[in-house]
């Protein structure tokens, strides 16, 4: 009986008729939205121009021109057809891929509309998207490390903020960006240690402990900033990591300027992403970490030290968050400003959930959120009437929708947030 029920449930997870219908309707609605929101006001024969190379590139590609109205109608029709197929037959386990495709169509349609009669540098846009996604993705990776081991970490924001401040301070004193970055990683680890001791040793509520760290980090960084950094500008003038183009690869058309002409933060993010994915899912280390997060008692019975594993995971997570903090000062602004992370840590948390606690899923979410961020800053330039605040809201709303299970259920590690009591 029990097996049949669970098999039944699994079947529901994969091809729930409600979900199939919701998805199909969603695809069609997105297609309709393309027509209703974007086509009015456009005239026949209008052209959207997408730039495909940066001004600095050696190989200049000719810009890509699309006819605005036909493109929009085309995208809408394809979306609607996909929706129809989804309603009639369903794409089964490929539904999420099709969803990604339709959302991609919608975003592309949006860009085609926003830049109608004008020119938008697509490559520059994608490059900005990637660099904006760095702190979000790194924050998400930090969260994944902690939460896969069963410790909820809402203190990513605080760790990032502290990392940003420390890297500015140490980087300015030593005039060495690398030492500044190391200091940021160390600061993140230190805060993570506090979080770990509070939540693992003292079994404090992990959300309270995270709040403690967030309040502490806000106070500490603002205090140091007001007392030293603003008074003595020499203390807030760290050297930065500029762009580091990778030879040859950065000259590849389109891909080169987007992927291989970035600061080291982007490259490290890619390396971390791959390493973490392999480590979590292909190694004994990762299996143990996940076991501790899913069923600590069973892991303990098998001789895995639950406490040690959790300490390690939380501190590693803190190091990643501290590194992400370094991005703000050493990789981007070149100085520390009070509360400069502006909620990126919490968006990272959202990206983690959105990506279902998987590194690559989180990266995808980070890209999406980074895109919203990049787009928000260009709307004004393009002269689009949509307030940028609504685009900036989108990640949060999307996360709530995902969390509500409308588009597939996000499933956290089973023991996430529950302190382990050794018997």
């Amino acid at each position, binding site marked *: 009986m029990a097996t049949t029920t669970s098999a039944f449930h699994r079947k529901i997870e994969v091809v729930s008729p409600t979900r199939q219908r919701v998805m199909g309707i969603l695809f069609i609605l997105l297609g309709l939205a393309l027509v209703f929101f974007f086509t009015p006001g456009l005239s026949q024969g209008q052209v959207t121009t997408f730039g495909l190379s940066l001004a600095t590139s050696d190989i200049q590609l000719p810009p890509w021109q699309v006819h605005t109205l036909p493109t929009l109608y085309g995208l809408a029709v394809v979306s609607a057809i996909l929706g129809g197929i989804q309603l009639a037959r369903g794409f089964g386990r490929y539904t999420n891929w099709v969803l990604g495709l339709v959302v991609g169509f919608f975003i592309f349609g949006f860009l085609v509309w926003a830049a109608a009669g004008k020119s938008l540098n697509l490559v520059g846009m994608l490059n900005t998207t990637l660099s904006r996604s760095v702190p979000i993705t790194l924050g998400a990776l930090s969260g994944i490390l902690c939460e896969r081991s069963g410790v909820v970490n809402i203190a990513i924001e605080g760790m990032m903020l502290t990392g940003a401040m420390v890297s500015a301070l140490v980087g300015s004193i030593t005039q060495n960006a690398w030492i500044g970055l190391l200091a940021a990683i160390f600061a993140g680890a230190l805060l993570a240690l506090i979080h770990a001791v509070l939540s693992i040793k*003292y079994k404090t*509520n992990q959300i309270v402990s995270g709040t403690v760290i967030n*309040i502490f980090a806000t*106070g500490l960084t603002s*205090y140091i900033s007001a007392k030293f950094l603003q008074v003595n500008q020499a203390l807030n003038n760290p050297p930065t990591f500029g762009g580091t183009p990778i030879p040859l690869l950065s000259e590849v058309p389109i891909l080169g300027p987007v992927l291989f002409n970035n600061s080291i933060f982007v490259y490290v993010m890619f390396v971390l992403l791959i390493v973490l994915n392999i480590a979590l899912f292909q190694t004994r280390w990762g299996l143990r970490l996940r076991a501790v997060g899913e069923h600590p008692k069973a892991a303990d019975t098998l001789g895995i030290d639950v406490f040690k594993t959790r300490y390690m995971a939380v501190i590693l997570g803190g190091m990643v968050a501290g590194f992400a903090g370094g991005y703000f000062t050493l990789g981007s602004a070149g100085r520390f400003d009070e509360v400069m992370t502006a909620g990126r840590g919490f968006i990272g948390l959202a990206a983690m959930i959105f990506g279902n606690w998987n590194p690559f899923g989180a990266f995808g979410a980070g890209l999406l959120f980074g895109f919203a961020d990049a787009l928000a800053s260009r709307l004004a330039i393009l002269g689009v009437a949509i307030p940028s*605040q609504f685009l900036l809201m989108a990640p*949060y709303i999307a*996360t709530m929708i995902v969390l509500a299970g409308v588009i597939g259920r996000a499933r956290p590690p089973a023991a*996430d947030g529950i302190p382990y009591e050794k018997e």
Partner: protein
Amino acid sequence: MNPEKTPQPPDFGKLVLEEINHEAAPPPQPERRKRGIPQSVLIPLLAVLTGLIFGAIFIILTSQEVYNGFGQSFGAGLTAMWDVVARSYTALFTGALGDPVRMINALQSGNALEIRRAFNPFLESLVTSTPYIFAGLAVALGFRAGVFNIGAEGQLFMGAITATYVGYKLVGLPMIIHLPLALLAGALGGAIWGFIPGWLKAKTGGHEVINTIMMNYIAFRLSEWLLTGPMKRPGSYNPVSPEIQPSAWLPRFFEDPIRFHLGFFLALGMAYVVYWFLFKTTWGFELRTVGSNPYGAKYAGMDVTKNTVLAMTLSGALAGLAGANEVLGVNHSLAMAFSSGYGFDSIALALLGNNHPVGVVLASLLFGTLRNGATSMQLSANVPNDIISVLQAVILAFIAAPAIIRSLYRLRKPAEGEGMITIKGWGG
């Protein structure tokens, strides 16, 4: 007094119980009451004390004077340490409660303005405490019902927005109608922002911690948009709303510069209402039962869904009142920077006050006083007022992990489990 005592009727239930048990009631246990203050009061006090000591260490470590002093001689260093801490905490104290010498001088001089100025710090502390009371009650009420409302900040913003809108949009109403209407609008705005995550938790299991964090940022962006767009003050370059009609202002009791207003008493009244609701009504009882034992509550036929939604909505309403209180009582218009993190501090307040309305009021008075004093500490002792956040974090850590305090002060572990909140993981 009546000298003849009427004989007490025998306690019938007790007799029956004795009959059933076939034994006499156990001899009264010798009084095992511990001497001194119970730990539920002692630990918060010690946490605050330790927090202040931490703050002092922090001030010393970041003071140039101290390093200069130690550069000269050890004695000079120690003197500098003492000087810095004494100056900072004196400024904190006089900034928060007023300078006694100045008060006496002012009273003797009889100058009305000087008297107001001398007593202003104390009253200003009450003004600062007021939103803390509302927001702290909001979080405490949530905790009592087993929901973690980390979104008080967003609810506060929404309450401020709706109260401001009603405050400046409706013109020509008498105060007796306009003010309650604006307050109600504030409560409603917050309530909606609390209802959504509550409903999502009850219906879909989406964890309220994540949803309220997301709602916080949605509220920030929304108010940013409103203040730069539809609610922008005409002719102003700053993102600020039009001024609220005086008929919706919370009345002030004194002339300038004293800003002490009716909101403080509203907050105290609300604390009583929350106490009455939680501990004297059936709804409150259900709420607390759902919070302490959701399975038991379900078994007893209580509607867990309804209570979760109700708790989040009420919590949001209280947080919304905090926002309304600030715009109607202090600022008289809405600007982006009107909240200095009341919503996040309120988590500390609720826990420091043991989730009891009386405790929350006391904790709020303490934090409000500290915050207010910190401003003058910044001016006269060059200690940035952000130190208060550091203090709050340290205090909160000690409250959340009382074992640290116990080992610091060699307190005994209480026999029964502690009343710390237990929230399960993201799963719901």
